[in-house]
């Protein structure tokens, strides 16, 4: 990379790209019996950019955390084997040599003002004050946030902006190694591109080495030099296997093993996972309707204090066997609308009305239904599965709905098998993988057999396999007459479900209220 010194003229610290070397490296987290990574041999040259792929459980995040020096010590009860080195020395003693970005934008922000947050890492590395502010300005320009004031509140940034801010904070430390752990999994398509382009620009400028973990290959393949695919150190039959399944140039790896990777859940460009097509178009019988609906997250008692509803005047109908997709930019009130439609938020104005067939004697306003009445009629799957977990095992979690409704376990067994959770019945829901959590959260809601299903960003951060299972399963429900409302940015998902689209426009009228 000849670009390693470009643009750094006039600054005292020029980025020196880092090399990474692993020899027989392994790590077992404290309190676990199986190692997260075992027998890893890997060399990454200074300035190289690597996309790290692999099924969940292959130890990708563990490797990034180890390189960032945040894995804890052996005396926590964890076990380390072999060696893992940055520039020939262990990562833990080299604060600031590597910078790490994680998935959840909310926890990538440390301080409440933009400039302070970028400065935080440089302060910790004891960089002199004048130099810190020079780096802050430069880093903010590099990630495209240079137009904002230094005291801009970080809470007012979008998800994509927060991730770019995190990148700026990392760049201000002048690390030789940039580590990105699913940096765009929680972002809408516009946010994904913002972050990807900011990463590309800053790497072109600094020449730093980069390792990114991400399911969506299309986003990163043109930006990386090499793809490395990891696999768990022990196969499903218990045999030892090398940690690196295959590696090579992006084009070669995808040509050679694209289908195999897709089958393992990786989003391979050009391969949309096969899904079950719809078999009918639904009866179209109206179940739920929104009339001139205005929505707001403010509790009813605090409304009318000058803050306008995030969205108003929405008319929409939800019909049996038909899908309704709610789309629009971030902040347009899509989730707020879905939650209001689902009887979880009170309408700010207008109304949500349940048809006689859906209400079945419970009144027409879903918000006034008792929780027990609600779940048998409208089921809502939240964006974050953990928000909906209320018990200690997968089986209990699935039994909550039927038990409240005084029903038996028939639906539960079927759902367990259908969503591949039957081997996990005694597991704690919080310990499941991302895909398993998503499947469980859908299953728990469906266990109450609702006639209307509302899903908030059901495919965010999901690997291709879970995605395909979910989409296929929903087409079955639709064919069987369930009405499905989904808030999503995912065009492929929308195409599979069919039905109609409700597009909400940006509602940034509440100036200053963010």
């Amino acid at each position, binding site marked *: 990379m000849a670009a390693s010194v470009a643009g750094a003229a006039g600054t005292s610290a020029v980025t020196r790209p880092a090399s990474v070397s692993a020899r027989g490296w392994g790590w077992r987290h404290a309190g676990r019996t199986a190692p997260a990574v075992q027998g890893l041999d890997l060399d990454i040259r200074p300035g190289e950019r690597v996309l790290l792929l692999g099924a969940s459980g292959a130890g990708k995040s563990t490797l990034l955390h180890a390189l960032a020096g945040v894995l804890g010590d052996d005396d926590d009860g964890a076990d380390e084997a072999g060696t893992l080195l940055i520039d020939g020395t262990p990562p833990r003693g080299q604060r*600031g040599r590597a910078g790490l970005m994680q998935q959840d934008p909310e926890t990538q922000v440390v301080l409440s003002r933009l400039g302070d947050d970028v400065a935080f890492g440089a302060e910790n590395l*004891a960089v002199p004050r004048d130099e810190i502010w020079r780096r802050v300005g430069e880093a903010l320009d590099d990630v495209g946030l240079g137009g904002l004031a230094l005291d801009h509140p970080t809470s007012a940034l979008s998800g994509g902006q927060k991730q770019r801010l995190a990148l700026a904070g990392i760049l201000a430390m002048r690390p030789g190694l940039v580590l990105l752990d699913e940096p765009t999994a929680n972002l809408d398509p516009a946010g994904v591109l913002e972050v990807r382009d900011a990463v590309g620009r800053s790497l072109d400028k600094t020449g730093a080495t980069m390792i990114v973990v991400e399911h969506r290959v299309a986003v990163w393949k043109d930006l990386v030099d090499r793809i490395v695919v990891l696999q768990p150190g022990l196969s499903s039959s218990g045999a030892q296997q090398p940690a690196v399944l295959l590696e090579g140039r992006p084009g070669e790896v995808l040509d050679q093993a694209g289908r195999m990777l897709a089958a393992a859940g990786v989003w391979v460009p050009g391969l949309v996972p096969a899904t079950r097509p719809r078999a009918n178009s639904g009866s179209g019988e109206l179940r739920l309707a929104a009339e001139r609906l205005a929505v707001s997250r403010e509790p009813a008692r605090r409304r009318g204090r000058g803050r306008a509803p995030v969205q108003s005047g929405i008319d929409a109908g939800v019909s049996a066997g038909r899908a309704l997709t709610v789309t629009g930019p971030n902040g347009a009130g899509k989730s707020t609308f879905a939650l209001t439609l689902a009887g979880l938020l009170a309408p700010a104005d207008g109304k949500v009305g349940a048809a006689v067939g859906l209400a079945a004697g419970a009144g027409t306003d879903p918000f006034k239904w008792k929780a027990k009445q609600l779940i048998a009629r409208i089921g809502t799957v939240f964006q974050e599965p953990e928000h909906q977990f209320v018990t200690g095992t997968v089986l209990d979690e699935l039994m909550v709905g039927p038990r409240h409704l005084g029903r038996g376990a028939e639906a539960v067994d079927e759902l367990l098998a259908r969503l591949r959770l039957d081997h996990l019945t005694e597991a704690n829901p919080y310990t499941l993988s991302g895909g398993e959590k998503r499947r469980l959260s859908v299953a728990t809601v469906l266990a109450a057999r609702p006639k209307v299903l509302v899903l908030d960003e059901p495919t965010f951060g999901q690997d291709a396999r879970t995605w395909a299972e979910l989409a296929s399963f929903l087409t079955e429900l639709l064919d069987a007459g369930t009405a499905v409302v989904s808030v999503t940015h995912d065009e492929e998902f929308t195409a599979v479900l069919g039905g109609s689209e409700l597009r909400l426009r940006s509602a940034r009228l509440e100036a200053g209220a963010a």
Partner: protein
Amino acid sequence: MREALTIGGNSAPLTRANPLAKFAAVVFITAVLAVSIDWVSAGTALAAEFALFGLAGLTLRLLWQRGWPLIIAAAVGGWSTAILSADSGRMLVDAGIWSISEGSLELGLGFMLRGLAIALPAILLMSCTDPTDLADALAQKARLPHRFVLGTLAAMRLVGLMAEEWQTIGMARRARGIGSHGTPLQRLRATLGQSFGLLVQAVRRASRLAVTMEARGFGGAERTWARESTFARIDIWVVLGGALIAAAALAAAVTAGTWNPVLS
């Protein structure tokens, strides 16, 4: 909730003072008022505080929004003191065990004014002090350990998030069929369950935030400060002002003969 934790676009003179100076002024006033329950010292301090209102960029509306729990607590405290304390002097109202006499009314009034006079400087301080500046001053000037100060500051940012999370978890649980209706016992159980859910999320968020901070080099022995916490001339005035209000309150009460130290 989030707005309440920031000073927003406040550009009032007191926002420029060093947080430690403001804190010292508040301590002076609170110390005098804590010693005596009488309406003259409390009233004097309160009058002075109201006069300085604008300097902190505070309006009555903002005061009510930020301090209503304290204001109501002061009023309720004063009222109950008036009706329940031992009677002395002329009887004003007598309804069995509930009676208000001149003596108990004076005590109640003193109690309420004192509550307000103690609460107001704290609200004033919070509304013209950015938490980040306070942390800078505590770490650089008061020499508190920076790991503790910055850790607390970062955690405070999560408090606002937690308020939103509480609402979301409440809705998510209703969507699972667990409502906050029914008998008091059922409601208590629902609230406990929701609190547990919030706690889990808080711990998760906090540990991810800790990783973020550690990955940015936090926790080393040496550290520089991008923002220097400094004292300026205004800080002398702030400390003097606090001392002056405290002294005026004391002098007024002693002159009026109402000085009534609780510890004698």
